[in-house]
């Protein structure tokens, strides 16, 4: 019996890559919590975390330790299995999306083959991301229902309807992008944005599809359940929303998965619209340094763009007040979806009349 013909070194490469990516996402998410509090503090003229370590840099560790040490309470009348399943799904779905993101240019090996900095280059990468995002809402819904609490249930319903409404606009805005690039593979989309300027125009998709980017980023806020769309955990109406009944590390999982999601969606935004690991003058740099350095610089550029997006997410959270529920639905169904449809039609028309080679 012959098993799958995959070399051991490839499996080893992928395992190391997955471990590094997961470790890096967890680390960046951890320090996002610190950065969020610092950004909030600066915007409100406070000082933020100061006590634990220099500039409060050990604060995330202290927070994690605190969450681990807290007593775990499971409501007596809820379904215990589903109660634990909720935060687990939230965490799992947050970590899964990173599999199809190309983190950097290939690293050439001595024998001519390459090490790919992407876990899986599947030909439906964009749809894979979309699928995982659409499953992410189950974590909130199952946890909210299993809490056996009216406020949690309300929050679960809000989260579900919000996720479904905004997924539509997100999908349609991505269709316009995919029509332009002609591929659903993340690697292909990023490679098409090589450099910064080619054939008399910018190569980055942001400059070709600004409207799609606008719709996508608004929907990303909504899918992340982040302010100004955080109606699911609206504390002035619903106490804590879906995590009202949660304590200890299960609460930590919910809160933490939001930060992982924020990091991953920042990476997706920079890959789809801002060139991923491409940067102006990359060919000049590539001619002067070793291939390994080229890959490392690419990864750093991608992470730099992602961090800019994370800070942007934070600025928005501390600037714009929360939407009312009807405003949220109106924005989703009556503004974003028609806009996305218009964008799709316009893109189709432009491709048909100006870029039709046949």
């Amino acid at each position, binding site marked *: *019996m*012959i*098993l*799958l013909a995959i070399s051991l070194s490839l499996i080893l490469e992928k395992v190391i890559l997955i471990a590094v990516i997961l470790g890096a996402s967890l680390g960046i998410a951890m320090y996002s919590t610190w950065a969020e509090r610092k950004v909030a503090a600066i915007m409100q003229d406070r000082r933020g975390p100061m006590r634990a370590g220099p500039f409060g840099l050990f604060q995330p560790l202290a927070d994690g330790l605190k969450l681990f040490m807290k007593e775990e309470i499971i409501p007596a009348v809820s*379904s215990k299995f*589903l109660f634990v399943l909720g935060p687990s799904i939230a965490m799992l779905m947050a970590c899964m999306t990173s599999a199809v993101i190309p983190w950097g240019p290939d690293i050439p090996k001595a024998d001519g083959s390459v090490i790919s900095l992407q876990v899986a280059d*599947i*030909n*439906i990468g964009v*749809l*894979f991301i*979309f*699928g995982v995002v*659409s*499953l992410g*809402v*189950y974590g909130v*819904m*199952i946890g*909210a*229902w299993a809490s056996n609490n009216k406020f949690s*249930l309300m929050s*679960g*319903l809000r989260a*579900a*309807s919000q*996720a*479904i409404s905004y*997924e539509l606009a997100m999908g349609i805005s991505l269709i316009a992008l995919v029509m332009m690039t002609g591929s*659903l593979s993340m690697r292909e989309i990023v490679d098409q944005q090589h450099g910064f300027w080619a054939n008399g125009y910018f190569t980055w998709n942001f400059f070709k599809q600004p409207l799609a980017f606008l719709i996508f980023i608004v929907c990303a806020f909504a899918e992340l359940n982040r302010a100004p769309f955080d109606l699911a955990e609206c504390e002035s109406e619903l106490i804590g929303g879906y995590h009202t009944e949660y304590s200890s590390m299960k609460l930590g999982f919910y809160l933490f998965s939001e930060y992982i999601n924020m990091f991953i969606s920042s990476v997706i935004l920079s890959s789809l619209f801002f060139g991923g690991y491409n940067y102006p003058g990359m060919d000049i740099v590539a001619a002067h340094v070793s291939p390994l350095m080229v890959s490392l610089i690419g990864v750093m550029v991608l992470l730099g763009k992602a961090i800019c997006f994370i800070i942007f997410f934070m600025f928005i959270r501390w600037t714009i007040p929360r939407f009312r529920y009807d405003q949220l639905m109106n924005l989703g169904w009556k503004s974003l979806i028609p806009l996305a449809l218009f964008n799709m039609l316009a893109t189709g028309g432009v491709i048909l009349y100006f870029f039709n080679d046949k």
Partner: protein
Amino acid sequence: MEIHQVIFWILSLLTLSFAVGVIMSRSPINSVLFLILTFFSISAHYVMMNAQFLAIVNIIVYAGAIMVLFLFVIMLMNLNSDTEPQKNFLVQFAAVISGGALLLIFVAALKSSFTGLEGKDINLIESTDIGLIKNLGQKLFTDYVFPFEIASVLFLSAMIGAVVLGKKDKVLQAPK
């Protein structure tokens, strides 16, 4: 046995046991969760047949959207066991008869789809690129464009119907 046959049998076993779980579990929430797992294992079957696009669309549409709505409705229901309607014997009998008839039709359809294929060696692994999105799109927009458009008109009418149903309340309340 080849490796893909081993995977096929494991997947089939999983699919069937999840499907049985849907109808056996007492709580509707558990039923819905089992149904989601069933969709996942069906998607895995699609991946085995190299139809990645179908697999992911199955997950996005069914597991990601339709089942969320199912869960949404079930969460709003009062799930106490004393409010559960007791079905009488006649209804149960009729349900068994109609369910059995449906099963008979499925089995017959499955059996007739194999006629003419006896003795032929069907190897799905070698013969398929059709499930990839490029080939699927070309087939859909050339050979099957008419049924495809008809289906889209059907969806549009369903959407308009839903909007009309949703608006009905407002119109009735307006003259007050």
